[in-house]
Structures are given as C-alpha cells and as structure tokens.
C-alpha cells in the first residue's frame, strides 16, 4: 500500500509545522493548508487519506469545511479544537467528523488516533458493508459472535473470557446502560453483591485494550451513578 497522505489544516503555522514534523517522523506524507478554503482546494489536488482540521480558522471554519467535505467524500476527519466542552465535541462529531481532539493535545495520542482512523478506513473498506447477523460494528470496533473475535480498527484484540462476555453484552445492546449488578449477574451468572469494584477492574482492563486514551474513553463509557455502556456510533 502507498504511504498515507495526510492533510493538516490550522491557521497557526507553528502548530501545522509541528504536526507535519511528527507525522513525517511516523512515516506519513503531509499536505498543509491554513484555512478551510485552502483545505478544500488541497483535497481536490492531492490524493488525501486523512484530514486533521482546526475549528477556529479564517475564511471557512473547521465545522463548515467538514460539512463541505462530507458532501463528496468519506475520508476520515479528525477535528483539532481548543473548545473542550462536551457540547462542542458532540457538535463536531455530528457534523461528520470521525474524532475530536482537544488542544493542547498530547502528540503521541494524536498519532495513535491518526493511526486508528487510517486503519479503520482501510479495514472497513475491505469489509465493505456486508455485515452478518453475528457481526456488530461500532466505530472501529468489530465484533463477530460466531468466531468470538473482537477487532479494533482491524487489529484483533486478545480478551479473557470474562472481558469478552462484557464486551459482547454491551456491544450487542449498544446504547443500553447496564448497572454493575446487571453485568455481574449476566456475565458471572451469580447473585451480585458489592460488585462495583470487580466489574470496574474488568472495565478498566478492557479500556486499556480497546481505547487510545483509557482516561477519555471513546467506546466504553461510565454513566456516573447509573452504570456502563457502549454508545451507538
């Protein structure tokens, strides 16, 4: 496969330069743009596999640019923004972005997210849209209950039996919130008493295997004071 080409868009030239530097260190090719219009232009002229997009930019802001791109293309878009509110993240993702990274970001984490998005893009391209009844796709997570196999962005994940059961329960019922007791009763098949810690330990381990940043999970979320869930994407 060709080397992936990534479009970096930000009105702050130093930031673009820094991102270019560590992306190229990681072996990617970088195309630069400094506002929304330039980005759209660069997208036409180059064969781009992924876009890193700032929100607050002159001429055309990041969200509008995302909408424009989504009219024609399905390539991964990662938004970079100084706005850290939940509502900003939800807005960005609902505009069609695939991921949302807040500034100031950890370069290593950004790199991991770029890799993840690229792999997912390629992998899902391979899979097409053919999903059998035994298969569940949520974002980059791909679960096959026949083979009892979970892949994240195409990479198989090694899970213990208990972890697999938890993931299966939460993925096949995505969006549904389960309390620790419910998870325990369904997975361990025992009456639950004071199991919050036990369940949470497993949840933490699963997160470390499937999340890029386990502290800010994308998939396996805690609903505080209620339970746990994997959100529908």
């Amino acid at each position, binding site marked *: 496969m060709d080397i992936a080409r990534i479009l970096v868009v930000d009105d702050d030239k130093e930031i673009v330069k820094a991102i270019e530097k560590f992306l190229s260190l990681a072996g990617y090719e970088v195309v630069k743009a400094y506002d929304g219009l330039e980005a759209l232009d660069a997208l036409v002229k180059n064969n781009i596999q992924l876009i890193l997009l700032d929100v607050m930019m002159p001429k055309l802001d990041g969200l509008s640019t995302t909408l424009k791109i989504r009219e024609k293309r399905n390539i991964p878009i990662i938004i970079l923004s100084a706005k850290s509110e939940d509502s900003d993240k939800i807005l960005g993702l609902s505009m069609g972005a695939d991921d949302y990274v807040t500034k100031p970001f950890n370069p290593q984490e950004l790199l991991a997210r770029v890799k993840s998005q690229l792999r997912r893009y390629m992998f899902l391209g391979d899979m097409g849209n053919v999903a059998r009844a035994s298969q569940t796709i949520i974002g980059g997570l791909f679960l096959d209950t026949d083979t009892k196999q979970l892949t994240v962005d195409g990479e198989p994940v090694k899970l213990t039996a208990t972890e697999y059961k938890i993931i299966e329960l939460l993925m096949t019922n995505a969006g549904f919130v389960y309390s620790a007791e419910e998870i325990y009763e369904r997975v361990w098949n025992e009456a639950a008493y004071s199991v919050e810690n036990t369940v949470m330990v497993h949840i933490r381990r699963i997160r470390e295997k499937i999340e890029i940043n386990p502290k800010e999970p994308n998939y396996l979320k805690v609903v*505080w*004071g209620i339970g746990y869930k994997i959100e529908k994407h």
Partner: protein
Amino acid sequence: MSSVTKAIAFILAVVSFTVVIVQLQYAIFRDVDPKFLLVEEYKDSEDYMYYLNDAMQTVVSIAEGSVEPQDSEFYYYISDGVKTYSNTKNTEKSFYEQYDSTFYWVENGFWSRGKNAKPSLSIYTSLDNKYTVYFAIPDEFMTEMQKKWDKSRTEALQIFLSIMIGAIVGLGIIIYLIIVTGRKSQDKELHLSRMDDIYSDVLLFAMISIFYIWIYTMYEISYQYRYQLRDYGNIFISEIDNNQIYLLIFIGIFSAVAIIFDIIIFLSLVRKIKARKLIKNSIIYKFMHKISSMISEFFKYLIDGSMFKGYPFTKVLFNRQLIFISTSAVLVFFTLVFISMESFIFLLFPMLEIVLIYLYLKGNKETYADINKGFSESLEEQMKAERMKVALITNVSHDLKTPLTSIISYIDLLSKEDLPETSMDFVKILSDKSNRLKNIVSDLFDLAKSSSGDMVLDFENLDLKKLIEQTLADMGDKIEQSELQIKTKLPDQPVNICSDGKKLYRIFQNIIDNALKYSLTGTRVFVEMEDKNGKAIATVKNIAGYEMNFTADEILQRFNRGDKSRTTEGSGLGLSIAESFTKVCGGDLQVDIDGDLFKVTISFPLSYKV
C-alpha cells in the same frame, strides 16, 4: 433575715389574720355587738329603751282593751274610773313612785315620768282623759338585767381584745415581711423570684380575684347563716351551735388559703416595687409602650426620609407621599369641623380629596415609569457584562491553549532529537511543566465556566451511592499506589438524587484525590454517606500529613493549597472546582478542619421517588 425566719414570720402572719377572721365571724355568730363595749349600764342601752317602749305600749293596749290584761315583770295599774287593771295588789301611786328611775304615769290624758326616769317614746302616745295609769319596773328585774349585761360586756371585751391583738400582730409581721422580702442576710442585693416575672397586672388581678371570692363566700356564709339561726328574743350574746362551729372551721381553712395566696402575691408586688419594675413589667405598660412606639414609628415613616438620600426617584415618591398624607389629614380635620357645625360646606373637602388622590396617582405613575426604565437599563447592562465575561473566558482560554499546543508539540519533537543528556533533562522538565500548565489552564477554564453560571448541565436521576463506588473503583490504581486505606460506609439502599453525573464524578474525584495527596502515610481515608432529613450527605475524612495552618474558608479560595512547598503537580484548584461544581449541581460543600482532621461534607437534596 434568714429564710427560716421569713418562713416563720409568714406562717405567723397567716395564723394571725386567720385568727382575726375566725374571731370576727365568731363574734357575728354570737351577736357580739359594739354596744356592749360602749354602754356600761343596761338602763342606758338601746335594748332597755326598746324593752321599756314595748312594755309601756303593752300597758296602753291593755287600757284601751285591745290586749287582755296579763302578768309581767313590770308593774302596772290602770283605771278608767269604772274598771281597774293591775298585776299587783298595790294601787297606790306612792308604791310605784318609789321606783323613781322607772316610774311613768298618766293623769288627765298626760304622761309624766319619775324624776330619774328616761324619756320614753311611748309618752307621746295620747290616752283618753278618763284614764289613770301607773307604770314601774321593779329594781330586782333591773339588777338581773344589769348582771347579764355585765357578763356580755366581759365576753365581748375578750373577743374584741383578741381581734385587736391578732390584727396588730398580723400587720406588724406584714410590715416586717414588706421590709425583708427580696433581701438576704449575706448581701445587699435584691433577689427576685421567678414569680416576679409574671406581669404585675396579672398578679394584681389574681390577688383581687382571690380577695373578691373570699369576701363573697364570707358574706354568703356569715350573714345568711346568722339570720337563720338568730334568736330575736335574746338581746344579749347568744350561745354558739354545732353547725356554726363547723362553719368556723371551714372559714378558718378557707381564709387561711386565701390569705396565703394573697400574701404571696402581695409580697411579689412589693418586691417588684423595690426593683422598680412594677409598672414596666405589666401588660398594660407593654401594651401602651407598643402603641406609643408604633405611633412614633408612624411619624418616623411619615417624616424621616433620610434613607432616600441619593435616590432621586424614591425621594420624589417619599416627598409626594408626605404631602399627600398631611394634606389628607387636614382635609379630614376640616370635614369633621364642618360636620360638627352642621354646615354643608363639609362636602367640599371629600371632593378636594378626590382631586388630591388623582394628582397623587398621576405623579406616582410617572415616577414608577422612570424607575422601571432605570431598572431595566441597569439589568441590561448587567446582562451585557455577564455576556462579556463569558466571551472573555472563552477567548482567553483559546488564546492560552493555542500557544500551549505549539509548546507541547515542539517539546515532544525536541525529545525525539538526538540531544546531549543534560539537554534531555531540560526537555523532560519542560515537558512536565507544560503538562502541568495544560492542567491548570483546563481547570481554570472549568472553574471560570462553573462560577460564571455558563455551564451546560445534564441532569438525570442517579444513585449517589453507586457513583461514589464507581469513582473509588475508577481511582483504584491511584488508591493502591498511595499506601493509604480507604474505609467506606455506604448505605445498602440506592440514594437517588437528581444531578449531573459527570460533574459529580469530578467533584468526588477531586476530593478523594486531595485526600490521597495530602494524607499522612499509613492512615485511613473515610468515605461515608447517609441519607438524612431528605438529604444525601457524603463525607470524606482524612488525617493531614502536615499542619493545617489555614481556615476552611481559606482552603476553598482559588489557588490556595494546604502544602505550598511540597507538591508540584495539580493546579491547586481541585477543592475550588469541587465546591463550585457542587453549587452548580444543586448541592452544598462544606469543609471542616479539626486539628489534623480534614473533613469535606457534600450534601444534595434527595430526588422524589418515582
């Protein structure tokens, strides 16, 4: 002046007065009359005059034939020239004449009397000319009556003396009690009893009521009973019967009780007079005082406009109100004057009042409009300032984060360069500090947002107990590394509240983080919760590993950290954020410091059960 002396004096006073009353009643029952003391001789007494009168009338009646001749203690001789009536054989005038102090006769229709005889009313009774009447009372009878009179006198004098002595002793003791009440031998202070707190008029009313009931009962008993039993025939002191003895016992007890209460109340009033609070501590005074203060307040409200200085609108309202009320008062006055003069001019003044009210309302309407305008203007300004503040926070945050992004990114790139070891150390320091700066900016932003009230909240019903368990489980790694033990005491039942789960997680995370960071190594952190009085109350207690030389208020202030020198991670905003978030989420956070014990209490109202 010891209390024993006082008690004895009190008992003596009660006994004396009771004796006086019982004696008085005894005197009434026995028909002891003051006349026995005043009149020495029976023949000078009124009783004798009544007797004499009666006797002479009897004689006249016999003479006129309306009464049959009869035997009697007195002597009489009646002759009309034809018939003669007498109860003695002596018909000579000289026989009767020897009793010169009791001798009365009729000749030629005229009454005459012996030279020592007292004038009797009966001598004005006219008799026909034909009658000759001689009348005299024998000395033996008079002597016997005098003996009885003397006996009554002696008894009456005894009773009178005992009453006098009792009254004097009683009054003396009362005077003594008046002097010593409220005083104690050990000091010169005035000691008031709890009873003296009762309003004076209440005490006085009670005293008078008891007295009135007593008097009324005494009147009913003494007079009605006395007349029922009275023997009219006996003009001297009568004997006492059993019923009257029982009554006397009853009167004694009843009076003693009444006297006890009245003396107690009376002494309380005396003490109040001594303490100069008789008048002040009375309902009437309080009432009058309230009224007078209301009146003075009324005039203060009416006239004192000092609080409106510097407030032109309300000052105008106040002045208008003053003019309105005083003019109205004048109009009412004139209305009454002309009504009393029965002149129809009085109708003019109510009309003037209507005009006045119209002007008043019109003026007020304009001023109110001005006030409304001013108020909405200042409100708008406030909103504008609020919006600017929020915009400022967002902009500053963005302006801080953008350069920080570059800094962090380039430090990361630097760390990948092939640098000498010392330079790598510097890069490491830069990396740590820039990460800390990132945390501070992020925390600062959260704090600013929550305290400016511009925070988006996602309220839902959740179980606070579960949330605490989740938080502790989530922080499991940190807790294990900390060499501290977490002791939990949570209820078995879910504790449901309505709040924002993510914010609550931040709150508890910050507080527990704080406890882990600043606790003395090897100690325990206590996380407890209970639902009490409709509230979910969670507490986190830990023993500080250093001396907490600050107050609970200081630690909640921004950027204040318990330990300024030792810790370099964290923003120092943890507790401030926790407090601010708690407020925003509808709860209350309180910090208590007791020696080395650091305690955070968070309370949320329980949500209604669905």
